[in-house]
């Protein structure tokens, strides 16, 4: 699938079938995440793949932003360097977000639906997944075969968000 096509066709999918995802597909998706750029090539993200039904249910229950149990969760964590500055820690979230986009585009190209969630109780997710204190679960991506086909949400026109050379100067 062409990357521009994938970018435009991808939707946030919140309802999934019960079909499991083969490990090979998950590996392709995680490999796409691994190739996402990171600030200073820090690569401080860590990915927890959750497919165990009991663990998945627990994660869903403490995640008000997740509305159905998917085939898999990928919990994108940032493992802080021991001497991490505030700036480093700020870049971790950006790095995790970029990796999440790679995950979602790869998933879409492989026929899977996904949605990125940030509305979950972090302390609860840390407790469920045995995540140590210096590791922050920054984002959760839900993955599964789509059980819905949502219409594209509205997008602002380029004329409203793109400027030439100076802010507010028409492009």
């Amino acid at each position, binding site marked *: 699938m062409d990357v521009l096509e994938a970018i435009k066709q991808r939707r946030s999918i919140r309802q999934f079938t019960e079909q499991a995802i083969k490990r090979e597909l998950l590996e392709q998706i995680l490999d796409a995440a691994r190739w996402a750029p990171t600030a200073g090539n820090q690569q401080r993200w860590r990915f927890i793949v959750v497919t165990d039904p009991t663990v998945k249910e627990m994660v869903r229950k403490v995640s*008000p932003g997740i509305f159905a149990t998917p085939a898999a969760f990928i919990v994108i964590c940032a493992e802080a360097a021991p001497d991490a500055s505030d700036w480093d820690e700020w870049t971790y979230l950006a790095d995790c977000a970029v990796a999440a986009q790679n995950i979602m585009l790869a998933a879409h190209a492989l026929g899977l639906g996904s949605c990125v969630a940030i509305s979950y109780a972090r302390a609860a997710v840390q407790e469920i997944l045995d995540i140590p204190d210096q590791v922050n679960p920054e984002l959760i991506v839900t993955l599964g075969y789509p059980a819905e086909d949502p219409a594209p949400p*509205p997008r602002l026109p380029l004329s409203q968000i793109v400027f030439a050379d100076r802010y507010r100067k028409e492009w």
Partner: protein
Amino acid sequence: MLTEDEVFELLAFLVSSARLCVDEPKLYGTFRLVDAASRLLGFVLQSDQVQDKRSVQQLKDEIDENKFLMTTDQEGYVKFLDDLTRKVVRELKKRASAAL
């Protein structure tokens, strides 16, 4: 009416939502509340102790069909909340008159 598992599911949702409300925008808190209401109605519908299943189902459908307006149409979302509260009050009145 609720099973212990359902109570804990709702409990996890409510306390997680309480924590999220500290950081999330104000409107998200209202969304969590109506979403919790929908989840509660879902559990009630699964039990065999609900007398007016149709009304309960209608309220749940009303919430589920409109709650995501919060992200796309704030004015429409607030109108939905107003309409929903009126519908709930009508149910309260119906039950109060039936009890007389």
